[in-house]
């Protein structure tokens, strides 16, 4: 959390609505997308995002800065989504925490560029959209906001093992889809 955001949070805690409006502007896109990927409906996602911001405003006096503001806010968003879609909470919890191979994804390699690479990327983007909501939440937090496994576990109130398992399975589904996509090229 940068100094400017800390100051905005402090002012918001004192009831400064203008400071809170700046925080809303800063985080609205990701909050909306998180809700959209969890709920799958634009109107529902907008309403959930607004609800989450109002709850955050109400709960701000209890925010102690022990975690980052964004992880605290995302926890509120996911709770709002859980309340609206109770099966989501069950699905997330049911991912299990079996031992999975820990594949590091901090690789510096960049994929080959070109028309073929663009097509492959677009195909994978479509596949990401069709992942189960529980996986979509995980990959969104991990790859769009670059939250650590620990932060994701804290946001979703899940054991660390469940987060790793969920991400591993999400990527396994994408890997399977990628192999099918590339199959004709090898024939």
């Amino acid at each position: 959390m940068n100094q400017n955001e800390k100051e905005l949070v402090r002012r918001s805690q004192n009831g400064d609505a203008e400071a809170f409006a700046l925080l809303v502007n800063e985080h609205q896109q990701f909050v909306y997308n998180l809700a959209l990927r969890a709920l799958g409906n634009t109107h529902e996602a907008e309403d959930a995002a607004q609800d989450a911001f109002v709850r955050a405003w109400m709960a701000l006096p209890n925010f102690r800065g022990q975690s980052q503001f964004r992880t605290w806010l995302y926890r509120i968003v996911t709770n709002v989504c859980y309340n609206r879609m109770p099966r989501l909470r069950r699905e997330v919890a049911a991912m299990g925490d079996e031992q999975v191979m820990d594949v590091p994804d901090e690789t510096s390699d960049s994929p080959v560029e070109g028309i073929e690479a663009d097509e492959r990327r677009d195909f994978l983007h479509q596949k990401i959209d069709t992942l189960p909501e529980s996986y979509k939440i995980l990959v969104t937090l991990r790859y769009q906001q670059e939250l650590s496994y620990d932060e994701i576990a804290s946001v979703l109130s899940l054991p660390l093992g469940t987060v790793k398992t969920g991400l591993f399975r999400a990527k396994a589904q994408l890997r399977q889809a990628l192999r099918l996509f590339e199959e004709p090229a090898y024939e």
Partner: protein
Amino acid sequence: MNDDFEFERETVVINDALRTHPLDPAPPTLATGVMARLRALPANIRPRFRLSPFDYAISLFTTGMAGVSFVLWQSMPPQVMAQMHIEWLLFLQRLFQYAPFLQTIGRG
């Protein structure tokens, strides 16, 4: 070996797709909607700084400990006070005596 290379290549491609998956723009009415909802909140439920039971427990404990320390200090017999004073002076003396050695440790 070839399988490992292929697996690594797929991982790079998948990670790239996950990182570049575009976010939808937030609806233009989202932020205004939030502020409208905040304005509609009754004044009595505006956020106020509230202390949790844990805060009360900590402050009670700290105050209690300070109070007990003060009472003990006041109720100590003069002989014990004198003994403590002597012990303190002896401690300082030993500290200065070992100061060069401590400094050497400090320098590593």
